[in-house]
């Protein structure tokens, strides 16, 4: 019984190298993206990160046009485009009457359309699907190194930025009055977001790159009260979703990226129902209130 369970869960990873690579890549992404997602969620920037993930596409597409399905070219292109859009959207917000969400929406629609057109110039429908939904089962050594490097930079970066970043989330005005760190911290954080989007793009494609970033972070909110709890919970959620999604996609022959994101989505729905911090079930069965 237990043997079948273990075999069911881990069989594919024992048997196939490409599944092990996919697992390692997803676990690396699970270490770095969810903590970034926790901060995005707490700063009410969840949708903004989604918009930024689409902005990665035209950059990756230019890389694709120049060098075909080559990892370094597409990564560099995506990184450049993502950073450019993050900075431009900020500049448009500061210098015109348009609010940040509106300017990001404008940028991401333009970049998504431009990206699809650029890829269609040279590539096939299959290439387009690969770029939109990722190729987690085809991660090669450089891709794994990239994902590992991104995870390392992200964790060290977040540790270095942690205190000013929390202050900037909670009380930006206070941070402005005591230090000029606010601006640089904000941009460094955006840099980490773009870095993780590019990482997510390798595994899950541009359309779902934020899946492993945001879903586990939002899920963690139902299980922990403060940051020191939410960050580890989100990482564990993402890892569980990676293993479950990869196994599921192998067994049921589903597309891998969407399967992983769906697994994260299932964890979210379960937490929404039974999570101890504001889960729906706990609203229905209310214990008697305490003495005043």
């Amino acid at each position, binding site marked *: 019984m237990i043997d079948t369970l273990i075999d069911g869960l881990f069989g594919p990873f024992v048997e196939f190298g490409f599944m092990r690579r996919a697992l390692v890549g997803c676990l690396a992404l699970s270490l770095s993206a969810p903590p970034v997602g926790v901060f995005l969620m*707490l700063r009410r920037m969840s949708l903004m990160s989604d918009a930024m993930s689409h902005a990665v596409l035209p950059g990756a597409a230019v890389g694709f046009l120049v060098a075909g399905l080559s990892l370094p070219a597409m990564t560099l292109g995506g990184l450049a485009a993502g950073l450019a859009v993050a900075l431009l959207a900020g500049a448009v917000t500061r210098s015109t009457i348009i609010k940040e969400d509106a300017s990001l929406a404008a940028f991401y629609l333009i970049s998504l359309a431009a990206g699809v057109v650029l890829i269609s110039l040279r590539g096939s429908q299959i290439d387009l699907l690969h770029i939109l939904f990722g190729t987690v089962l085809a991660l090669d050594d450089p891709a794994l190194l990239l994902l590992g490097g991104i995870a390392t930079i992200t964790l060290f970066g977040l540790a270095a930025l942690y205190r000013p970043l929390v202050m900037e989330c909670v*009380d930006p005005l206070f941070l*402005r009055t005591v230090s000029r760190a606010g601006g640089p911290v904000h941009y460094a954080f955006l840099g980490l977001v773009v870095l993780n989007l590019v990482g997510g793009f390798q595994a899950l494609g541009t359309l779902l790159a934020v899946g492993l970033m945001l879903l586990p972070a939002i899920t963690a909110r139902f299980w922990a009260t403060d940051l020191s709890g939410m960050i580890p919970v989100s990482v564990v959620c993402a890892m569980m979703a990676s293993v479950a999604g990869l196994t599921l996609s192998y067994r049921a022959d589903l597309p891998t990226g969407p399967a992983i994101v769906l697994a994260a989505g299932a964890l979210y729905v379960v937490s929404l129902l039974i999570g101890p911090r504001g889960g729906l079930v706990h609203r229905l069965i209310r214990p008697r209130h305490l003495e005043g």
Partner: protein
Amino acid sequence: MSPPTGAIALHGLTLGYDRHPAVHHLDGTIQPGALLALVGPNGAGKSTLLKGIVGEVPCLDGRIDRSGRADAIAYLPQSAEIDRGFPLRVLDLVAMGLWHRIGPWRRAAPYRDTLVEALSAVGLVGFEDRPIGTLSGGQFQRALFARLIVQDARIILLDEPFTGVDGRTSADLLRLIGAWHRQGRTIVAALHDLTQVRSHFPQTLLLAREPVAWGPTDAVLTADNLARAQALSEAWDEDAAICGRSAGGVADAHPHAHPHTHAHPHSHGQARDHAHRDAP
């Protein structure tokens, strides 16, 4: 020529939004150790002046001289734009006041006693580990005062610190302000309750965009001055002409291209006699 620690010198200061002055040609010095109340009707520029001093609102004209170090000023904004839904403990909120001592990377743990002491000084013993979202309005204001204590600044600016706070809490916080005053800190507080001002603040600046009067509280808060402040503060003229008065009389780049006598929107004449009176 920088003023002594704890002093703020204002030279022909004009602050505003979109070229419309909200504080207009303010001259004077807030002496070190002063306990100054900022009084005036809504829209008189009290908040703008405080924001100008911390650098949140840029000067349209004139300048502010204050003693150099960045940690010299602590500022409590009117309705703090604090995200109270953020999962943060009260102790962590108060610990933000340690920024000048620990910066982004040093440990806060050695200062735990300082933090707990500050919390007990504002009557929040045992609240260390409560999430900030569970505090009431008054308790939250007390926590922000604890953060001010931890900041340990020479100059403390308070923007309507007692709005939405009950009598007992404001009495406690006023006692704290008195203690700061005795420690020689400079305190400027924007306030609405004139009884509070009369009984606790030795000096007052009555503001209605123009400075109406500045000096000992009893001399400033006369019925006459208050009525004039009310009358002055009302209009925001969309088509206001460009102001011809230069900052503090220095280098008049545009020497009265139009005379002051024609329909000038800022009613200079009425406020002028008191405009340049310094605090004693």
